[in-house]
């Protein structure tokens, strides 16, 4: 009975949290767009300053002012984000885009990190499982004499260094 009431408490708490999250998520959602800022941070300034267009502000930049005007004009013309990025890429080259696209070889840039991370995660889990199994097997084949010798060597070589770490 007590376990049952505790479960109900946790379920109710989870429901309350989810409800609060849902309410908060929906608060203040609007429709206005900040496309200029967004696109300005998806394009690079081409003056070799290695800064994004939306952040390039160094004195006398020969490119950023003109590029920003082009961006404003493109947004005003009603072009979609995709069309604007494509037109900039066609005019200034692929390096004007602040990140690789998701087409062709560029897609590898996005996939590789997650693939490697997933593979490493899986590998680690398998390794831990392997160790756990191996540990059981090793316990059955334990060699007390060898363990004692190894411990003796460690004690001898590690002596005089205690307490400082």
């Amino acid at each position, binding site marked *: 009975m007590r376990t049952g009431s505790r479960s109900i408490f946790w379920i109710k708490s989870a429901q309350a*949290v989810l409800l609060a*999250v849902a309410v*908060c*998520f929906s*608060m*203040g*959602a*609007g429709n*206005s*767009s*900040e496309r200029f800022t967004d696109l300005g*941070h*998806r394009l*690079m300034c081409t003056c*070799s*300053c*290695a*800064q*994004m267009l939306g952040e390039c*502000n*160094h*004195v*006398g930049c020969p490119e950023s002012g003109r590029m920003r005007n082009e961006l404003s004009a493109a947004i005003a013309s009603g072009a979609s984000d995709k069309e604007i990025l494509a037109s900039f890429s066609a005019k200034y*080259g*692929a*390096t*004007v*885009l*602040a*990140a*690789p*696209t998701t087409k*062709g*070889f*560029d897609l590898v*840039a*996005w996939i590789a*990190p*997650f693939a*490697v*991370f997933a593979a*490493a995660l899986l590998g*680690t*889990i398998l390794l*831990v*499982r392997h*160790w*756990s199994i*191996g*540990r059981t097997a*090793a316990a059955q084949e334990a060699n007390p004499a060898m363990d004692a010798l*190894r411990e003796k*060597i*460690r004690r001898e*070589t*590690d002596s005089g*260094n*205690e*307490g400082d*770490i």
Partner: protein
Amino acid sequence: MATLGSFALLVALALTVYNLFAGTMALRLIATGQPSRVAPDRLADTARRAGIAGFAAVSVAVFALVWSVFANDFSITYILEHSNRALPGAYKFAALWSGQEGSLLLWAWLLAAFGFVLRLTHKTDVKLYAYAGTILAAVQTFFLAVVNFAAPPFALMKGAVPDDGNGLSPLLQYPEMVIHPPMLYLGYVGFTVPFAFALGALMMRYPGEKWIKITRVWTLVTWMFLTLGIFLGMHWAYAVLGWGGYWGWDPVENASFMPWLTGTAFLHSVMMQERKGMMKSWNVWLIFTTFLLTLLGTLLTRAGLVSSVHAFAQSSIGTWFWVFMLIVLAVCIFTYVLQRDHLKSDQQLESLVSRESSFLFNNLVLLAACFVILWGTLFPILSEYVQGSKVTVGPPFYNRVAVPIGLFLLFLTGVGPLLPWRATSLRAIRRNFIIPSIALWGTAIVCMIAGARPWKDGAFDSGNFYALVGFSLSAAVFAAIASEFLRGAAVIAKQTHRNLFAATVLLTRRNTRRYGGYIVHIGVVIVIVGLAGAAFNHNEEKELGVNDTISVGPYSLKCVGFTQDSNLNFNSEYAMLDVYRDGKKLFQMTPEKRVYLASQQPETRVAIHSVVGWDLYVVYEGTNPDTGQPIIKAFLNPLVSWIWAGVVFMVFGTFVALAPSATPATASLRVPATQPVTAEAALKGGD
């Protein structure tokens, strides 16, 4: 002085080469037991002394270069290109590392200095130190060969000597630049020492974990310098570049961050080896990788492989670094393959949910983050090779890929300390996680109510979402660490009748390593909170005449005038802006624009007013050529000061971890495995 400097560098190279060959020969004679005319011990000692003398010789070269800068000796090409007569004294000193040749000399000198300390303290373990000293001499030989033959800092200019130099880059004429590069170099160079010990210990099949204990102080101090170097660089970028940010995922920034990540992984995983005799191969490869990454970063930026705002000009030294890196990698692989049987783990993991596992996953995530950054840095080169055209891998890529990994790492930072060693029960997990979970969800709800919602203008906003997750996880991690402190301190307070603060201090003193580490984690949490604040940055830009105002956040900035100033080094023009809040004048800000006379290059001096909640950051962008009106850009950057405060905590925590514990840190071996922090552990220590 140029002759003295060049000669000193040649002498240093000769001494280091002797150190390398005599050391190698002595170690080989000792290992094989072959008879020889000179006793191997004496030969090894002469090698060690040559290493010490080598440090003196490089120091003479450094002195000669610094002296020449102060003496305005423009017959030396390096000084002509990086200094001028009107340059203030501190920046003249900084000229030592402002160019390629000088910075390589600084690298060689710091390496020699580390070697000097190592060789003086050789009695700790004569044989291991002899191995490490010889390996260090091999690295020193490379750098001294580079500064002698590929990038000589004392090269003389041809033709008539100009009366004045070209001056230091305006971007480098900032107080941080006097300390940021040396800190970063101390970090880079310092990792050579644990690398040398790891390789040496592997070569001699050194039993036990003593080499890790010996290098622990080196590694921690090195890590601290690298941390400081990175954050000082961030602050420099924030205050000088004038774009309102501090981290742009530039290849040079990435180059410094990668060894920091692997070095951090190493600092965590060595605990597994010390305590459990596990992850021996892993640790050896972590430190090998860290060392190689310090070289790779240097190679990437100096060989012109990637474009960067602070990359040095493309030069021939890239080939030197390629060759050296390949040699280092070959030696590491060869030694590992030959001696890998020696690195067999003593114990193995028992459970997926344990402190050991959390260390393993922590390492995995740190290395994944390192891979992402390396991948992003190298992808333009790869793309050019495959597609024939370069692409840009900028902040949007890293924000989407690296930030989630970073948040997962933050999650592990909180989870790790809550898990006991070996294995745990569901009940223990529930008990330990209840407070952090409340903190996490409570913070998430409060943040969303306060406006930090992952929705902006009806669309999903990844920046706000990451910020929300960052704040919530930070609160959970802080709660987890705080509960660790409080649990231990409460026991001490009860038994010793001290107040909670005094008990916390005593708790920390009794196990400086553990609680110092927790303080570093608190620092990381504070930094993350500061970084998450960037999602809510906003700025306003306006052409501002006298008496015009610009508003940003709660502030109104009224322009009261523009004025000019000049000195021998630069001409400056600055705006005087009175800052009002709720109609009340608070202070005046004077963003500045300078033009340096020697180089005729402009530079921005940002005006920053920093409070706990935000930074008011004002840039004088120059004058609109069409209207003649000055342009002012004002940013309100929330929580930036938290980043710098977090670093202070990280450094303080490192010092605490370096300090010896009041009681030996071995008592925790008696702590029951299922308790993360027990009264016994709190009172007696344990790591």
